[in-house]
Every structure is written in C-alpha cells, then in structure tokens.
C-alpha cells in the first residue's frame, strides 16, 4: 500500500477534523450565543431599554451603519479570544490530553500534514463561532421593536468587511499563538491562562497604546486592530460612517498584515517545536527520584505523646492547614506567572497616569493608587475565581482527600483554612503596590509620598475583597462541580460588573457593591467612608452567612449526593453553627435596614431613570403654562450664608430685590427652591413684601407658585425674602457629598438662592432620550436672531446684572470665598465652635452667577497694577501655584492693555476637590479643580504644554469675555464667551512661550475637533451658530481666531475686538449675539470678509497636501525652490456630507531648513493660490529641506501630516 499524496492526505484529514468538530454542539452554541449578544447590543443601541445608553458613535450615525456594525463586531469579537484559545489549543493537544497520543503519534501521517489539518480545522470552527457576531448584529438591526430613526444604512457587506477585514485576521493571529502554546506545552491549561492574560493585558494596554505620540505606531502595534480601526475612521463624519465600508486601508492594512504574519510565525514555530513523541517538552522540575537506598530498618519506638484538641490547639491546626493551602497556591505552576503579569501591567499602566494635552500630571499618590488598584483588580478577579476552585478541589484533585478527611479536625476547619489562605494570597498581591507606586513616584522626581494613604487605601481594598473570597469559595462548595463552579463564578462577576448596564443602581441588591470611595488630597475620604464601611460590614456578614452554608454542605469523605449532603448538613447544624448563621443573618438584616433607612428613607433614593422622569415631568407639566410667562428680574442680592462644613449643613437667608422689566404686569410667578441629591431641605421659607399668595406646586421639583394681587405693574418693584436651611441626611446611593464637604466646599448659587420662572435648561436634552419618552424635538438653543433670546443673557434669565453683597460665615479654621471684594473679616467666638465671618461686596453690578467656596487653604498673593491677585491652594499642592499666579498677572496686564481695564479690585484662583475637573470663572473668582492644573507636571515648557498657564489665561479672559460683555441666550452665545476667551489665552500663550508652543497646542485642538464632530449626537453647526458645543467653540473657535489674527494681524484684530467690547460692555438687554460680533469684525476688517464667511458662517474643511518640492542652487548662495501643492476645500453640512468649493485665496506657504521637529523658517508668506493644484516658485536665502502648505495648521485639515514635504535637489 502506497502512502497517499500529502495534499489528498491533508484534505482527508481536514474533512475528518471539521466534520468531527462541527458535529459537536458547542461551536454552534457559541455562535448562537454571540449572535444573541450581537442582537442584544443592537437592541440596546436601538433604544429598547429605559435607562440603558449604548453608544455607536454619535446620534447621527445609524446603529446599522457599516461603521457601527464593524466596530461593534470588532469589540464583541474580543471575547471570542477564549473560544479561539479553547479550539486552537484543543486541536494542538487534544491527543495528549485524552491520552490518545501513543496511538495517534505512531501513525505514518507526516507531522506537517497532521498539524496543518488540525490548524485549518480549528480556523474553520473559530470562523463559525465568530461569524455569529456580525450575523447577530445585522439580524438584530432588522427587528421591528427598534426606533426607526436610529437605523437606515443596513448593508450585508458590513458583515463581510467585519469578518474578512478585521475579525478573521485576529482569529488567525490568536489561533496561531494558542496553537503554538498548547502544541508545545501539550496542555490546555496554559491556553486558558494565556487567553485571560491576553484579554486583560490588552484591555489594560489600550490606554497605553492610545497615548503613544506616534499615532501610526500605536495603530500598528495594536494586535486586535482597535487602534488601527480608530485611526482610520475617527475623523469620519456621521455621513461617512453611514455609507463607507471600513475595509482596512493604509496603516490598518499594514496592521492586519503584521499581526497575521505574527500569528503565522507562531504557527511556523509550532511546526518546528511540536514533537511526535511520548513526552514532549517538559520542564525538568519534578523528576522521579530513584528510590532512596534501603537502610536496614532500625527497630524504632514511636513515643506516645499527649494530644490536644482544645481551642488553642484548634488554632494551631487552622494555622497549619492555612499554611499548607497557601503553599499549595504559591506552589501552583502558574501562580507566579499571574503575579509577574500583574506587576508588569501595573508598571506599564503607571506610565499613563493622567495626561492632558500631552502633558503629564505629577504622580500624586491617589493617582498612582487609582491605576495600580485598578490593574490589581483585574488580576485579583482572575486569581480569585481560579484559585477558589483550585483550593476547594485541591485535595480531591490530588486524591489526597481521604487522608485529610479521616483526620480528627472539625468540619469547618478545612473551609476556614482555605478562606484565610485565599485572603492571605489576595493580601499578598497588594504588597507590590506601594513598592511600585513609590518607585514610580521617585523615578518621576516626585517626593510628596503619602504612606498613610497607601496603607489606608490598600487596607480598604483588602476589606473589599474579603466578601468576594467568601462568595467565590462558597459558590464552589455549594455547586460541587469544578467546571460549573468556575462558570458560575465568572457569570457572577460579569453580572456584578455590568450591573450598571442592567439598570439596577441600588447597591443593596448587588453583592459587594457600595457607593464607593474616592480620595481627594483636599477633602481626604470626605464622608464616603461611613457608608462605604457600613456596606462592607454588610457584605462581611453576608459572606460569613455564605460560608456557614458552605460549611454545612462541605463534602467530607465520599460524596453522598445532594440528598446525602443535605442530611449531613442537618446533622452539622449544632448550636454554634445555628448561632453563627442566625447571627450573620441578623447582622445582615440589621445593617441592610440601617442602609435602607439612611439611603432610601431619610435620604430619598432617586435612580438615574427617576431623575430623567423628573425632567420629563417638569417639561410636560410646567412648560406650557410657564415657559413664556413674564417674570420680574433680580436687581439686588443681599445674602447671609452660614456654612457648617463639619456638620454638613448650611443656612442661607437674604433678600432679592425684583423689578418688573417685562413690560407686562406680572400676576403670578414660578419660584423654585433648591433641590439637590446631596443637601436636603430642612427649612424653606419665602415671602414677598407685596400682597401675594403662595402655593406649593411640586415638592420633588421644588416648585412654588405665587399669585400677586394686585399684579406687579411694569417697572414695579418688590422684595423676595428667603430662608433655606439644607443639610446632609443619611447618605446618597449614588455616592459621597461633593458640594458641602469638610474641606473644599463648593456651593453653586442654585442651592442658596430661589430661582424665578421656568428653566429650559432643566429639560431633557438628548435627542434619543426625548424620543424614548415621547417628547417633541427640541432645538438645543434659540435661533441666532430670536428676539426673545436677545432680551436675556446666556448666564441667567433671572437677572441682568445685580448689585451683590454677602456675609459668609464658615468654621474659623477655614476661609470662605464669594464674589466681590472681601471688605471685612473677623472671627466670632461660639460655644459650638468659632466662626470666621467675611463680608463680600461687588464693586459694580455683576452677572447673576455665583459660587461660594470654603476650605483650609494656604494662599499666595501678587499685584497686577492695583489688582490683588491671589491663589488659594491646598497646602501640599504648591507645584504650579507660582505659574498660575504668573499667568493671572500676565493675563490681567495684557488683557487690560489689549481690550479694556479689569473691572474688580481682586482676582482669586481657588482650588476645590477633584470631584469635578474644570475651572470656571465667576466674578472676581476662579474656582480651579485640584485634578487639573494644580497637579500638572510641566517639566520642560519647550516639550510640555503648560496647561496651568493656559487654563488660567483662559479663565482670566472670561473676566472680560463673559463678565464685561455677555451674549444673548441664542445660538452662538458661547462664541462671545468661550471662543474669545480661547483666543485671548492662545495669544497670551504665544506671548509667553512663542508660536511653536501654540502650533503644538493647536494640533491637539484640531485632532479633538475632528474626533468630536464625528460623534456629534445632533448636528454640527457653523461657529456663529454654535449651540454650546465644546468642539466648535473651543477647538474650532481657537484655531479659527488664531488664523484670523495671522491673516489680518493680531493688533488689528485686537483693536476690532476692543471696540466691540467697549460698545457692549456692561450693557443690559438687548444682549449682543455672534452675528453682532461677525458684523463688527466685517466692518472693522473689510479685507477679512471671505475668511469670516468661511470660518464663522460655514463649516469649511480642507485637505491640503504638499506633493513635491524641488530646489536648485542659484550659484550666489540662494536657492530657487518649486513647490507643488494639492488644495481641496469643501463645505460640510450638519451630518458631514461634503460639497467641493473652488479654491482661490491666500494661504500660507512655508519653506524651511532643518527637520520637522526643529525647523528653521527660510520664508513663510501668505500666497494667493488657485486649486486644485498650484505651484509656488520662490527664492530662499539658503538650502531648503522642507516646504509645504499651511505649515502651522491654521486651516481645519483632517490630514495634517502631509502638509510638508521634503525638498529634493535637482
């Protein structure tokens, strides 16, 4: 008999393999499962579940668009890594695992044929499994129960692209890897571990990959192609996302090829290393020792010694068993691989602690801990799930259970030992954290170590893990099947992790949950620790109960089956056990009762769905009646505010002077009182000094109606007196207090002043959410030219500008900050604690927007002309205080010169806790979060964007652009506020650091603009009509204004802005709009007309490219350079459909010496160019190396890397 040809042999084997594998139910079951998950995903994204928001990239991207289908399928396919590990691993080591290898490996089949058949068979099976994902998504998108508005670009080719372009290359890559791993080790187990590590590591490394400066590199090295997919599609407009098929191109194609190649090389290594023999590769650890030489048996007498079984002896036994169990874990062959992986990833992730505009923050301890504990968490979950099963089954797996079970130890002891051992292992995993943390801190040159915080945070972390140890072990004991136990534990974890997505927020229903804890250097743990520990006590008690149940069902000796175990459990129910179980139930019930009382009775429980429904009710019940009802405006504020940070309460008492400026008589008013999820009303009192009747409309919304009889005539005046006492009561399910806290109080005016009239801003804004609740479409803002909008300002419709006086008291060891100048301050002595009382007075009427802060700060002061500038900061956060002070004084001086004089005597920058991460400009005060700026690490101003300086400059600019001139409440309102502040800050940054610094900054801004417009939920609008969209008024606005300054000259632009400001400064209604600004600029800068149209009135995008540049020497040292460029200019509509525009305008052209990183301008000029292709021929003074179009990226250009081209010499 002759051997068949290799090809036919392979085909026969492959057919055999595929039929055998596909005859089993599991590939089909998994395919069905993934299809179901895909469907569920689409249904959720389609808006089927209340309170569940699943995003697919912006409201204008269809849920069934090729982009959405591909990206969702790509993400979901990541979970199939475990399937690939199982299938490919099984194909490689099935024979050895089943003990069939002596038979199989002695057949005459060539090794190569055998391995190819197995590998290709595995690919087919994996292909069947992953094909379920896009199939499920596409089928799901056709289900009738979805909102049709979110669908419409269904394309069956999406599935083909997702599979062929993205998922299958991943399958080949991972299959090659796992085939090799299992083939060489001849075991499945390394694959499961490898699969988990690959997933966990990859998900964690995402941040790391994203953070790379070099986008192409980060796209290339991402093995699953997420980064490449992102790079390829992130600027795609909603329209493009709906119509383009995302086949991998460019870097994506390279990425796919690279990882496909790596998978195949892994396969090739299998071909080299796989051995058709009995033993395979084996680590030389446990060689069977030759029997020890037989010495003649000595007649030995075994001494009889007393034995003890008293409680101390039991303790010794428990310790011995625990030590044995710990050694079992530590001796496990993969344990140290887990530990090494944990430490490795922790080290990796610490490299990306908080960056902003490419600048690091200092590795403050809480930041380091956040990263390290987060990483640890991933690994502890894996280790816990895995070793819980391993420990419970350890004796039985080894076959040593009969020895242990017949020993005179009580039934509870083995389980107790395993609990203690697993807790000890988890505790041990925490040990590297402070070491790594301190190393990271020291290596960054950071020396403000906080050992106490390390200790506290890690102790809390361990406390939080203990109940999960109990749960994981109890599940394994009760289930009494190792595999089922593992699956049950994993499912529990998944459910607990994604509980938020399931829509249940009340922590009591979720084992191990709590409102959480969060450290702030300013406010430490705040008031989070009490509720958190209460919850931990509950979970400990529940965990103890679970362990008692587990101890009752613990199998000792031969497994007697469920009925036998229950019989045995009854026998084990002795007094102590009943007592413990009863105790844990009683304690759990008691703690649960306390929690319910605190967070659902004295403190109302409002879920996020409840919150949304309140917004819906507000609009449904009050809009029709009140939205257009005329209300008087506030003209004077006189406030007494007592803050009791330590006691968690505040009392506000004062008067608002009202004037009817509406031109109509006011017969009734809607008055709202403070509502907050944190501070609950203790006392609410309101009165008017004119005849009036008060009625409560809605308690939850804090709405009252007041009827004025007689009505307040036009021009009539009245005084509204109010008293609000608010306090913390119980605790909020959603988390700790952030407004009124021990150190770092930040109270907004809405919590201390009554509101007047219907507040449109409270309405539900999200388009999809509104549809879900059957609310009509709602414009985000009033039209640019809406006359009603012009009668009120963007900040508040309750007032124009107001006279302001406030007396604010706080604990004597704190300072309080309020708008206006601090005209007086003293300390009052009280039995309950001394009080610091300060009086603030605004020198001139201010906008109706206040914040009241109180904390234990240090402060530094400086003078800018007559103005007292100060920074109030947490005593340890000194890193950037001087920079901020410098930025503030520089800005005050510059803006005063460029625009108009500063209007107040004082300017204060005030640090508040990291519960929010913004800085905001109030009249004479700038609250600044501890998380931004204060802990930024600007080591080298040439390299790092100095964002403490930039943010300060921006916020100080608001003292002009907002507080001196305020826009009407219409589209474009934020142009006058944010865009102009951004322009001021950019030019200030240029003055301080030079233009290159700004160019680098603007590159980030362009990237953020293009990324954000791609996921716009509603519609993109031209800058002049911006509807409070950050990417338009900050990112696009900054670029546009900077380019405008370049085109017309900064001095001319400043002069135009100055005259605009002076024309509108401190004006009441009608307020100016962005159209007023554009008209003003057009008049002042007649040459900038077309540019203003393109930047403010249209969405214009560019695609400029330098295609070639050649140069030749002229013999006199000068060179003639010829540059060819391609110019594309398009106008985009609201969803990104673009139409081409002709190019005929001045654009900057530059020729440089040096490198891209360090270029030396030889000649940079604006040149009138005509598209689509243009040539520029220039003489430059020396040899050029680079030439290009729009070299500083002042035009909005998606592809900015191709603007410069290297110059070739003729």
């Amino acid at each position: 008999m002759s051997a068949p040809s290799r090809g036919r042999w392979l085909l026969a084997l492959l057919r055999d393999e595929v039929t055998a594998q596909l005859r089993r139910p599991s590939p089909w079951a998994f395919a069905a499962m993934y299809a179901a998950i895909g469907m569920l995903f689409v249904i959720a994204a389609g808006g089927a579940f209340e309170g569940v928001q699943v995003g697919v990239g912006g409201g204008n991207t269809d849920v069934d668009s090729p982009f959405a289908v591909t990206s969702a399928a790509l993400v979901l396919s990541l979970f199939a890594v475990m399937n690939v590990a199982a299938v490919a691993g099984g194909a490689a080591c099935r024979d050895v695992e089943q003990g069939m290898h002596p038979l199989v490996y002695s057949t005459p089949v060539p090794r190569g044929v055998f391995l190819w058949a197995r590998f290709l068979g595995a690919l087919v099976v994996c292909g069947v499994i992953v094909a379920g994902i896009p199939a499920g998504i596409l089928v799901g998108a056709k289900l009738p129960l979805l909102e049709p508005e979110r669908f419409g670009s269904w394309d069956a080719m999406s599935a083909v692209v997702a599979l062929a372009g993205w998922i299958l290359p991943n399958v080949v890559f991972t299959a090659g890897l796992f085939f090799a791993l299992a083939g060489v080790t001849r075991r499945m187990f390394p694959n499961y571990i490898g699969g988990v590590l690959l997933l966990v590591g990859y998900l964690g490394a995402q941040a790391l990959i994203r953070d790379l400066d070099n986008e192409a590199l980060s796209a290339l090295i991402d093995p699953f192609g997420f980064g490449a997919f992102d790079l390829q599609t992130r600027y795609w407009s909603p329209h493009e996302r709906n119509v383009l098929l995302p086949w991998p191109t460019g870097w994506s194609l390279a990425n796919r090829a690279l990882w496909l190649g790596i998978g195949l090389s892994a396969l090739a290594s299998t071909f080299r290393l796989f051995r058709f023999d009995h033993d395979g590769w084996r680590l030389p650890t446990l060689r069977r020792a030759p029997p020890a030489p037989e010495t003649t048996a000595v007649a030995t007498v075994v001494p009889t010694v007393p034995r003890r079984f008293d409680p101390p002896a039991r303790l010794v036994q428990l310790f011995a068993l625990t030590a044995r169990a710990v050694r079992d874990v530590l001796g496990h062959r993969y344990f140290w691989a887990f530990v090494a992986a944990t430490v490795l990833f922790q080290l990796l992730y610490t490299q990306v602690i908080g960056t902003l505009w490419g600048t690091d923050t200092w590795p403050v301890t809480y930041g380091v801990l956040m990263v390290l504990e987060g990483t640890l968490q991933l690994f502890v979950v894996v280790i816990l799930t895995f070793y819980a099963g391993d420990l419970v089954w350890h004796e039985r797996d080894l076959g040593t259970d009969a020895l242990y079970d017949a020993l005179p130890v009580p039934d509870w002891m083995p389980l107790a030992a395993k609990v203690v051992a697993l807790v000890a292992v988890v505790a041990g995993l925490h040990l590297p954290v402070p070491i790594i943390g301190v190393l990271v801190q020291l290596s960054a040159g950071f020396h403000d170590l906080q050992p106490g915080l390390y200790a506290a945070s890690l102790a809390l972390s361990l406390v939080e893990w203990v109940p999960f140890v109990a749960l994981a072990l109890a599940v394994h004991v009760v289930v009494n099947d190792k595999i089922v136990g593992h699956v049950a534990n994993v499912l529990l974890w998944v459910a607990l992790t994604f509980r938020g997505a399931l829509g249940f927020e009340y922590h009591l229903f979720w084992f191990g949950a709590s409102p959480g804890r969060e450290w702030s250097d300013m406010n430490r743990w705040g008031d989070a620790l009490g509720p958190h520990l209460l919850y931990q006590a509950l979970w400990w008690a529940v965990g103890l109960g679970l362990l008692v149940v587990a101890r009752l069902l613990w199998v000792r000796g031969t497994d007697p089956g469920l009925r036998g175990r229950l019989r045995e459990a009854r026998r084990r129910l002795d007094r102590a056990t009943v007592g413990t179980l009863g105790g844990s139930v009683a304690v759990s019930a008691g703690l649960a009762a306390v929690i319910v009382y605190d967070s659902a009775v004295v403190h109302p429980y409002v879920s996020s769905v409840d919150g949304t429904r309140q917004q819906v009710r507000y609009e449904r019940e009050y809009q029709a009646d009140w939205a257009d009802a005329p209300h008087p405006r506030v003209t004077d504020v006189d406030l007494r505010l007592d803050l009791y940070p330590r006691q968690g309460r505040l009392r506000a008492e004062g008067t608002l002077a009202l004037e009817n400026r509406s031109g109509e008589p006011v017969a009734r008013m809607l008055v709202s009182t403070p509502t907050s999820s944190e501070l609950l009303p203790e006392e609410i009192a309101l009165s008017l000094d004119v005849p009036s009747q008060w009625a409560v409309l809605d308690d939850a919304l804090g709405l009252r109606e007041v009827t004025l009889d007689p009505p307040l005539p036009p021009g009539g005046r009245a005084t509204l007196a109010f008293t609000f006492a608010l306090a913390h009561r119980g605790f909020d399910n959603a988390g700790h207090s952030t407004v009124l806290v021990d150190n770092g109080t930040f109270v907004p005016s809405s919590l201390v002043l009554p509101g007047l009239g219907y507040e449109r801003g409270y309405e539900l804004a999200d388009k999809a959410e509104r549809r879900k609740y059957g609310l009509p479409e709602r414009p985000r803002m009033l039209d640019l030219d809406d006359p009603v909008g012009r009668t009120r300002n963007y900040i508040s419709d309750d007032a124009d500008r107001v006279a302001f006086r406030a007396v604010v008291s706080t604990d004597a060891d704190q300072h309080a900050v309020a708008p206006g100048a601090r005209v007086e301050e003293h300390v009052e002595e009280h039995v309950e604690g001394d009080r610091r009382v300060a009086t603030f007075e605004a020198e001139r009427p201010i906008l109706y927007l206040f914040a009241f802060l109180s904390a234990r700060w240090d402060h530094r002061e400086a003078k800018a002309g007559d103005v007292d500038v100060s920074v109030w900061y947490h005593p340890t956060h000194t890193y950037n205080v001087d920079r901020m002070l410098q930025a503030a004084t520089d800005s005050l001086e510059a803006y005063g010169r460029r625009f108009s004089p500063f209007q107040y005597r004082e300017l204060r920058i005030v640090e508040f806790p990291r519960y929010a991460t913004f800085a905001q400009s109030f009249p004479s005060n700038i609250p600044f979060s501890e998380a931004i700026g204060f802990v930024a690490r600007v080591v080298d101003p040439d390299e790092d964007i100095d964002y403490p300086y930039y943010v300060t400059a921006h916020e100080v600019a608001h003292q002009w652009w907002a507080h001196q001139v305020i826009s009407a409440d219409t589209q474009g309102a934020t142009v006058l506020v944010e865009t102009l502040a951004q322009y001021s800050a950019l030019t200030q940054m240029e003055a301080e650091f030079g233009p290159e610094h700004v160019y680098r900054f603007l590159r980030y801004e362009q990237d953020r603009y293009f990324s954000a417009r791609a996921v716009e939920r509603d519609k993109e609008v031209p800058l002049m009509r911006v509807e409070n969209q950050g990417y338009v008024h900050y990112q696009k606005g900054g670029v546009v204004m900077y380019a405008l300054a370049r085109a017309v000259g900064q001095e001319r632009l400043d002069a135009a802005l100055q005259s605009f400001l002076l024309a509108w400064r401190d004006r009441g209604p009608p307020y100016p709009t962005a159209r007023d600004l554009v008209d003003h600029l057009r008049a002042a800068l007649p040459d900038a007309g077309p540019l203003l149209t393109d930047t403010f009135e249209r969405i214009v995008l560019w695609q400029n490219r330098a295609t070639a540049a050649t140069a030749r020497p002229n013999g006199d040292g000068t060179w003639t350079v010829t540059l060819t460029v391609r110019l594309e200019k398009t106008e985009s509509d609201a969803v990104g459909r673009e139409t081409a525009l002709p190019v005929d305008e001045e654009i900057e052209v530059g020729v440089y010496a040096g490198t891209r990183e360090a270029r030396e301008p030889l000649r940079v000029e604006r040149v009138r160019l005509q598209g689509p292709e243009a040539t520029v021929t220039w003489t430059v003074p020396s040899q050029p190396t680079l030439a290009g179009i729009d070299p500083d990226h002042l035009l909005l250009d998606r592809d900015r890397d191709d603007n410069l081209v290297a110059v070739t010499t003729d």
Partner: protein
Amino acid sequence: MTSLAIRNLTKTYPNGVRALDDVSLELGAGMFGLLGPNGAGKSTLMRTLATLQDVDAGSAVLSVDGAPLDLLADKERARRVLGYLPQDFGLSPKARAQDLLGTFAVLEGLVDRAARRQVVDALLHKVNLWDARRQAVGTFSGGMRRRFGIAVALLGNPRLIVVDEPTAGLDPAERARFHHLLAELGEDAVVLLSTHIVDDVLNLCPRMAILHQGRVRLVGSPDEAREGLRGRLFARTVTRAEQEALDPALGVISTRLVAGRLEVRVVADAAPAGFHPVEPSLEDVYFAVTTGRWTP
C-alpha cells in the same frame, strides 16, 4: 484491650448496588484480613469504618479498654482513635516528606512542636523514609508513597487501623518490605487489612474473613479455612478440548495453567472421574467461596 464489633452493616448505592449486605464481624486486637474480589464491598466497609461514608443500617462499635465508642455516630471521636490508609491516594507533590508528615501530625492533635518532632522522626525511621525525609513527596515511588501513608495512619497512636488494599501494584520487593511494616503494627490495636491478594492474608493475618457481593462468606483463621476444604478438593489436568467437554455441574472453582497445561479444580464430596485429591491452599478456599461452590 481493644475490640471492634461490626453488626448488620447494610449499604445500598443509589444505582441499586448493594455494597454491604448485613455484614457482621467481631475483631479483636491484631491483624484481621479481609479478602474479596474487586467490588465485593471491601472498600465500602473500610470507608465506613474510616468515617468517610454513611451506611443505611447497622453499627460499628470500638471498645477501648472496655469503653465503647460508636464509630458511625460519633465521627469526631472516632477520628481521634483511627488510623486510615486509603486504597489509592495522592500527596501535595512539592511538599517535603518531613514537613507534610508534620502537618498531618498537627492535625492529629500533636500541637507541641518538640513532641511532634520526635513522633515524626520516629515514624519516618519506622517506615524507612528517614533518608528521603527532605525529598518532595511528588518524587516518591508507589511503595514509598504507601509507606508514607502508613506513617500518617500511625500518627496519634491509633486503636483502629484501617488499611485498604495496601499492596496493590507494588513490585515483589516493595511488597515484602510492606509486609514487614504491616506486621509490626501495634499489637494493641485492631488492624483491618483488606486485600484481594491471598498471600497478604496468609503472611500477615491470624484471622480473616472473605467478603463477596457484600456478604461475609467465611470467618476464621487461614488454617481453619483450609481445614474446612480438606478432602473435598480435586484436580485434573486437561486439554482445551477436554475442558470444554467437562460437565458444567461439576463445580469448577478454578482453571489455571500449570506449565502450559490446564489444571481444573473442583469442589465435590467425592473425586469425579479423572480427578485426584489435592491439598487445599488459601487461594482454593478463596475461589471455592467466591464461586459459590462451597459454603463453609
């Protein structure tokens, strides 16, 4: 004095197999052999006495110096006087023999470190593992592992020692060593040894029982057992063709090859045609009982 009274033990598994059927035995101090084929119920009986399995009915009471201890009801105390060597067992592969035995000693109540050390060392000497005391038990051969198991069983000076199939799978030398070890087990303890190897019983046990299909078929000393069969056992050498022609009613208890030829043995009141009387061995007794051809 120590003795064990087993009365009417009955155990039926969920699949209907009756593993123990009204088993009663009286055991005094010393070695008692329990002989029976695979599946006879030996291990069920051993596990029951080792507190690892419950029976449906019956009792097992150990008397130590006149004080009775109900092994089935009071497992906690039973375990304190019990030494158990399971039929087949594993050990934490990386643990060193001395450490692991130390752990077992603690669990046996030997919490005093110095005393424990003495006992552990003495036992390691006794089972001849002293030289291997620092070796990982994962490297032990089957015989060494079983000797280690004996050391575990002997911890805490047990009064009832249950040894389940200790010699299965051992090579002859190792088995001989093991027999020496078993022979030294305490004179004052009840030692119950189960095996399906006749020589084990012959070499070691003054008293024995044969268990078959859950029932006790024979109790006595090996000599008594042989005595009962004397004069009723006959043998004949046959060819394969002749073997097939033999009368099925003959009462054949064994057919074995002797120097390449078949020897058939039967139990009968008188020699059947062509058969000659032979001296019964314990093995013949075992076959006679387990084939049901002879009931003592």
